[in-house]
């Protein structure tokens, strides 16, 4: 049977890369060290597969057909299309179709309706954390896109349930694999909206406390009340909620919180307590 060997979260704000020359040395060092600590933990877990939950930023999907949740079941995924990510070291990333198929089958058995894609392109949401954390070697990637970008969104409660289902899928996979889950995105930020650039530090710190506490119903109430006012990008906290579900709501250990104005994002990094 496969083993859930680690559950993690990391922000993926493009300005971490694109605005690097506008950040202070201390800000860059803080972000770099947070990613490196995250990568150290992921590498130490000796993963065969990493399930990465991220939004698709209008790369694979459009309003012609925008899945709520989509599992990448392909043998291989394309690297990021963003011109400013040319230095990302992988043009192709290996997938794990067998685990991806098992996740889809388990999801359906649990009354979910996942979409599947045999050919996903992984944008900065996936690739900034994979790159900046320096995970070596890079495990096979099962990408899962959550629609955090364009309403209607999956509910917070539904995302948590999806995470618990994901943990069950990993535990019931009939193969000897060490599997991790990495949720990317968040915390508060606003893109293309009137409050673009605003970081809601009070929301972020409350949110972190509730993830640390591990009380899932309290987290749902908090997010249902406060998420709508934390900026459209804060919707990506849904991915963290799925990770929280995968970790059975055991609570997480914060690696770093960096509210850096020139990144536009309240950047958070964490790993969950398991076992």
């Amino acid at each position: 049977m496969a083993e859930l060997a680690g559950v993690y979260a990391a922000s993926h704000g493009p300005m971490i890369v694109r605005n690097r020359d506008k950040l202070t040395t201390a800000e860059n060092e803080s972000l770099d060290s947070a990613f490196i600590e995250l990568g150290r933990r992921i590498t130490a877990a000796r993963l065969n597969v990493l399930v990465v939950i991220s939004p698709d930023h209008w790369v694979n999907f459009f309003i012609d057909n925008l899945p709520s949740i989509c599992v990448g079941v392909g043998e291989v995924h394309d690297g990021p299309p963003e011109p400013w990510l040319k230095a990302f070291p992988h043009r192709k990333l290996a997938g794990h179709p067998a685990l991806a198929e098992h996740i889809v089958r388990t999801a359906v058995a649990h009354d979910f309706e996942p979409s599947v894609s045999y050919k996903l392109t992984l944008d900065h949401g996936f690739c900034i954390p994979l790159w900046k954390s320096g995970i070596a070697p890079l495990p096979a990637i099962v990408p899962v896109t959550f629609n955090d970008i364009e309403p209607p969104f999956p509910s917070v409660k539904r995302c948590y349930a999806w995470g618990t289902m994901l943990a069950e899928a990993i535990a019931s996979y009939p193969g000897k694999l060490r599997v991790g889950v990495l949720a990317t995105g968040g915390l508060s930020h606003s893109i293309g909206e009137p409050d673009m650039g605003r970081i809601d530090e009070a929301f972020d710190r409350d949110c972190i406390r509730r993830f640390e506490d591990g009380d899932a119903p309290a987290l749902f109430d908090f997010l249902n009340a406060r998420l709508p006012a934390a900026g459209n990008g804060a919707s990506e906290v849904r991915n963290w909620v799925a990770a929280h579900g995968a970790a059975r709501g055991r609570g997480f250990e914060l690696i770093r919180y960096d509210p850096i104005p020139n990144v536009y994002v309240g950047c958070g990094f964490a790993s969950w307590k398991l076992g």
Partner: protein
Amino acid sequence: MKHREEVIVEYTALLPTHHSSPITVFQMRDYWLSKLFFDLQTPAIAEEYRADRGKVLARYPLKPEVRAAVEADDVAGLSKLANPYLLRFYFLMAGMPEDDFLRRIRSTGTSRG
């Protein structure tokens, strides 16, 4: 037996309004404007657009008022019609300086917080 109009009025009263809370449960978009923004993520199309806007715009059946808003770089007007990520991408691609975009989008009001 109720008249059809009465039933419709009762049903409509149950529907959430688009602006009843800061969260947007669902918001209709302008499809062709969104498609233009989406397609401009392709570098070759973006290059063509920067060289000759009219040539690219002619391929999209935009409503006259939407096309006029595009031609006028009307951030406020377009912000109501497309996803905010695509809106932000579009003006970045089109060459509007970040500070200018921020000033214009912030002038549209405070939708949150």
